């Protein structure tokens, strides 16, 4: 399992590739991944910048819990979560979740779970900068 908060640029493709190299070749038949990228719009306004605040310690703890819960619910070879903190700009990757399993069902379902669970539990908060100034994002959109 790898869980990390990233303070500089996040390269999700590199993160998945690097982690997959640590897995036993031939053991996994399915890799599912989700990448969340910053949009340049939200709720009708243009967004030029996003600040990601978190609760150091609690955030990492909840990401680990989410990863452990996925491993308990599905038959997985491994999981990965990397999430940005600090200031991000449009088109910057914000988060990557990935799950490896023998067959696709477990990988697909676990990858979706990792993302939905972290969005609902991990203490991160987004403050976005628009033409009208900066504002806190009050809630996430529904995932299911």
């Amino acid at each position, binding site marked *: 399992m790898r869980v990390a908060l990233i303070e500089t640029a996040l390269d999700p493709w590199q993160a998945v590739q690097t982690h997959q190299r640590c897995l036993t070749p031939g053991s996994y038949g399915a890799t599912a991944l989700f990448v969340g990228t910053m949009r340049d719009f939200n709720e009708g306004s243009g967004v030029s910048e996003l600040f990601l605040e978190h*609760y150091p310690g609690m955030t990492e703890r909840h990401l680990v819990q989410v990863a452990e819960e996925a491993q308990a619910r599905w038959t997985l070879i491994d999981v990965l979560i990397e999430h940005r903190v600090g200031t991000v700009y449009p088109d910057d990757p914000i988060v990557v979740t990935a799950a490896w399993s023998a067959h696709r069902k477990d990988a697909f379902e676990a990858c979706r779970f990792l993302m939905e669970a972290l969005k*609902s539990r991990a*203490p991160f908060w987004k403050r976005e900068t628009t033409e009208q100034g900066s504002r806190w994002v009050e809630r996430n959109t529904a995932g299911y």
Partner: protein
Amino acid sequence: MAVTVRFFASLRERLGRDEVQVEASTAEQAWQLASGEASLPANVLVAVNMAYVDPAQALEEGDEVAFFPPVTGG
């Protein structure tokens, strides 16, 4: 119990405070003393020692009690 209360994100900005030391026996009472507001807003989340709890949770000496708005990561 002497506890440390922390506020995050929009709640920290609205209250104009980051971290406060108070003497409280429940998380709800810690909210009242640290925020100066009588009731805990319905959407505010509560964590004690970095685990989500019910606001009625009894506190222990040295606990870290955190209050924050709905989370918006991902």
